[in-house]
């Protein structure tokens, strides 16, 4: 019979530290899981007033109201899968929190809309760099049928070298042109018209930030 004996360096203190560290690690992992989960929820995201504008358009989209009852939350699309990448995304995402606290007044609907294009361009880049990975959590290219006659064929035959986001942008949130064709003056003019502002107000707002 083999008698297991702890090595000499396993002192009581070391043993305690290992047990505490292990338990602490497990707790920390659970914390991260729960934290990522919670911080990916719609409720968490919309605790900032500035995010309620994104929420409005989201709630009007099929990603919120799908006929099948499947509902994608903010995090389902905007936070990567896996605890490491999810944590990383959240860590990077704290820049939004910093901007919210120290940057322009994003809670103001006009200011929010003025900055929407940059946010949209960044989000699209984010999707593109990840090859639309979060889309694929739910959507499998070879399973897409669609309701129109040739939707399946288009997705089988016309998507080589393309990622979901290449075609499917302006899907959930308010329409923003592609970065290539975006025209700041036209965007500002649209906001001024929408909010009944004097022409030039939008540019002034941006300049004084």
């Amino acid at each position: 019979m083999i008698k297991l004996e702890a090595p000499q360096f396993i002192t009581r203190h070391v043993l305690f530290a290992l047990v505490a560290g292990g338990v602490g690690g497990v707790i920390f992992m659970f914390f991260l899981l729960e934290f990522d989960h919670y911080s990916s929820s719609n409720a968490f995201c919309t605790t900032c007033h500035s995010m309620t504008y994104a929420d409005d358009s989201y709630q009007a989209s099929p990603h919120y109201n799908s006929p099948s009852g499947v509902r994608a939350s903010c995090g389902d699309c905007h936070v990567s899968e896996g605890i490491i990448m999810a944590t990383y995304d959240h860590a990077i995402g704290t820049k939004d929190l910093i901007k919210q606290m120290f940057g322009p007044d994003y809670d103001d609907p006009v200011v929010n809309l003025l900055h929407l294009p940059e946010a949209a361009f960044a989000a699209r880049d984010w999707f593109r760099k990840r090859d639309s990975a979060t889309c694929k959590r739910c959507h499998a290219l070879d399973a897409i049928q669609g309701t129109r006659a040739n939707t399946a064929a288009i997705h089988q035959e016309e998507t080589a070298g393309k990622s979901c986001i290449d075609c499917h942008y302006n899907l959930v949130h308010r329409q923003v042109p592609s970065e290539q064709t975006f025209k700041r003056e036209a965007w500002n003019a649209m906001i001024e018209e929408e909010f009944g502002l004097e022409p030039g107000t939008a540019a002034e707002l941006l300049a004084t930030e």
Partner: protein
Amino acid sequence: MMCFPLRPICRWTEVLLLVCCAIGSSAALAAKVALDPSNWGHPEGENCVSCHEKSSPGLTQQWHDSAHKVAGVNCLDCHQAEPAEPDAIEHEGQIIATIVSPKDCGRCHEQEYEEQEGSVHAEAYAIIKDRIPALAHNVTGSAMQAAGCDQCHGSVVKVRGDGTLDPATWPNSGIGRINPDGSKGSCSSCHGRHAFSKAQAREPSACVRCHSGPDSPDKEVFEASKHGMLFAAQRDQMNLHSDAWVAGKDYTAAPTCTTCHMGAAGKIPTTHDVGLRNAWNLNQPVSYQQYLVLLEDGSKLELPATEKPPKRGSEVEKADGSVAKVKAVISPDRRRSVMSLVCLECHAKGFTEGFMTQFDNVVELYNTKFGEPAEAIMAGLYERELLTPLPFDEPLEFIYWELWHDEGARARHGASMASPNHAWWEGMYLVGRNFYSRFLPEARAVAGDQAEAIIDPVLSSSGQHDWTDDPTQANPILGWMPTPSPRAGDLTTQSDASTETGAAVASAQEGVTDRDPEAAAAETSSEQGEPVSGVVPNDTETSRTSEEATQ
């Protein structure tokens, strides 16, 4: 179109030389595309086709069937855009624009673009821009501008800041559309996309979407004319798919809208300036003949020939408010002579001149008898503030509007294109009915005790309304029969004139004026067996009923 051989052009007539050189059109066929083929056939275009065969198979099939496809022109050749263009969007990796403007088409179809851009069609929006609110916004609502006015006249296409096209202005293929690139018009107004078939554009139906209905019933007028009759019966002989389509040479079966207003005929070249050959403006309260003013900047302008022609080199204001220098002025007579040359392919000179005289006479009649007096009466009522300046808040304004804009236009168009029914029953008859039974009574009511000052002088100065001064002049047209009271002299010259017959006439007239027409007719026919000589009603009635009996 780029692959069609260009028919050699021979000699020109003097008139044509002047007009045609001035407007720069030179070919009897659609102009040959001068651009080198290396400029089209975008390699990425194949990808568009592959996907759109599935996503929008209808329009893709139309393209497959088109001359564009045969020539190697694909989606991107027309839809490609520069990112800086106002309506540029990113689509599947390409920068494109939904709207293909005349300027875009003009990259290849230069001559057509130049002609169209200087035509009255291109000004269709500018012409009514200031008037739109009165009807489209006040009387109805702005939704009607998008769905009504703008669909023919063209919208000012608005690109929103988010890159989308404002649905208040798009979709639209109005002929005077103001495009995001600044060009005017829409080729697809007449040339159905995406087949862009020559044959389709040569059909009268190409014009019908706008040139129909109460105010410009050209569809109805054409169909009711001998030209339309022949077209319907001999459409299969129209050679509509032919590359060359010169009236009198490539087809003789019938003319279409295109034939007279745009088409090549004999030595007259084709033109995309659709108003070029029109001497008159027929859609005004009072018609006037028009100069065609060619401007230094390549555009054109129509000015009333009632005024002096502008001098060469002088500056004139265009419909869109900009100013340009005058290069040349073409008189209404010259415009008419070009139109007449089309007629001469099928008609003799005397016939053509006679027709034009009949047409001109109708316009003159409308002008002098109804248009000018009605305009003067309205002006009088406005001047004396008996009408508010706001249009359509008083019934008389609708009456006046329909008089010239609908009924009057219909009469003039009917005469211009030889539909007797539209010249008369649908046109001038309604003008007359409106003028005497609606316009004048309402105008008198509005004028009140000033009617004598405002209305009567206008009517008497025209000299064409005197017939109303003698209400005793009878005529059998209304189906019942009060005849002119036989004058004493007439009665005595009749064979057995007597005081008795005179009394009979008097009693017969009393009878018809007091009773309804049917009773009167019954009474007269009951007397058929014993005709009273000298009593015209009975004679007329007898002959009419016997005529009916033989039918």
